[in-house]
């Protein structure tokens, strides 16, 4: 059903890794943002416990999403039939 993937495979992988890295940058960015907001809540004496709980939930969700996409993309790369690449 699917024909061979041709030669500029290395360039493709490089572009795909760049695209995947955007998601990790988002996850990292959200983590830093939420940590900063917890820090602000300590400074202004807000409900620190609520801030921490919300932050933990938010951080976990983003990291799981980034992990799922990485799992898929690594899995697709490893699961390919190298014979079809030739």
């Amino acid at each position, binding site marked *: *059903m*699917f*024909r061979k*993937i041709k030669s500029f*495979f290395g360039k*493709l992988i490089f*572009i*795909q890794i760049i*695209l995947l890295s955007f*998601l990790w940058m*988002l996850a990292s960015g*959200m983590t830093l*943002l*939420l940590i*900063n*907001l*917890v820090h*602000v*809540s300590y400074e*202004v004496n*807000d*409900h620190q416990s*609520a*801030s921490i709980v*919300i*932050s933990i939930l*938010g951080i976990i*969700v*983003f990291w*799981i*999403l980034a992990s*799922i*996409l990485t*799992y*898929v*993309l690594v*899995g*697709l*790369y*490893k*699961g*390919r*039939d190298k014979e*079809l690449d030739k």
Partner: protein
Amino acid sequence: MNDPQYIDEDEVLFRPIYETSKSFYILAAVLVVLLLFGVFMYVRQLVYGLGVTGMNEPVSWGFYIITFVFFIGISHAGTLISAILRLSKAEWRRPITRMAEVITGIVLIIGGIHPIIDLGRPDRILHIFERGRLQSPLLWDMTSITAYFTASTIYLYLPLIPDIALLRDRGGKFNKLYRILSWGYQGTEKQKHVLERAINILMVMVIPIAISVHTVISWIFSMTLQPGWHSTIFGPYFVVGAIFSGIAALIIVMIVFRKVFHFEDYLKQIHFNYLGTLLLVMSLLWFYFTFAEYLTTFYGHEPTEMRVFLYKFIGGYYPFFWLMVICNFLIPLIFLTNKKLKTIPGILVASIAVVIGMWLERLIIVVPSLANPRLPYPTGMYIPSLTEVSLLVAASSAFILGFMGFSKLFPLISIWEIKEGREESVRVVSERLNEYLPSKGHIRK
């Protein structure tokens, strides 16, 4: 497959990508003009300030927030319905899920932009990053919408990979893009297993995220002490309303693309019957929540709450309120319970009424409470300006344009799921039936 004479049995699903009619270009041109006019009015707002809108004291939220809540609500169409139908292994979902997921992606972007438009000065968004307070539902909202957008984009992309691989192998335009996005997918057993596992995890994850989004949006209102807003029922009420408007939007999108691209063989009467039944159930649920909400207010007869109640029922906003009830309850009830009217055109009429009704519901929630605050002000007045109306039109144009753009790049119906359905559904459903039906030869005592 490499034979130039080869025609796929689902060739009609590829046609929107490779063939573009004159009317497509004309419609795109009209929509781009409307969008650009909206952008012009927004730039004008940036120059002259929020004074160009109808917002004032005490009505400091208007069309922008209404549209924000409305579009985020519609986003529930996609991921939630698609995820729930996949989770329940409903075979009839196959031609529907892609369009539902695309709706989510597009409306989340459009809805997410509106609070920034409402800010007046968009640079103020940076305050969230510097000095945001996690105690505020606005921050919860920002977090949950970002999470939902990320999850639903991945949830759209993963099932799209096999179709992108098909497009890659056909050759032709955008081939480099398809090569990048297909991630080397060849349809091997290992690759199918990886994709299936990831989609299964995501479809379970995305449901609580989707529910949290509209619950948190409702808390922006209900966590305040504004009369008409401070209600414990708002969380589930908003979620029900979101799913309701989402199903209606999905039906409209399906009917339009069925007509325009000749998908009659894929989007059949039975799909619309099932979605029409879901729409009716949501209409009844919506009515139940609305009735419970207003009965509680009326029975309590608290003076500031009653001011808002009467303003909606018989005061300045009564035309919008009763039009909302007609659109969200009466019209769906009439069209979806009557066999003669429950045709595709009838379901379309009901869906359009629901979309209008749900926008009105957001109007009824936002403005009357602000116009009648707890403070001893006279009732406020809100008349939307040309700026706000044009941005609403621009948002709607952006939605349609987004779909049109998607249709030129990717299939609107999941081709690999249709093929998989043809090959495996009968066997899978038979096995499932055998699992829960009693076997033959059972002896009764």
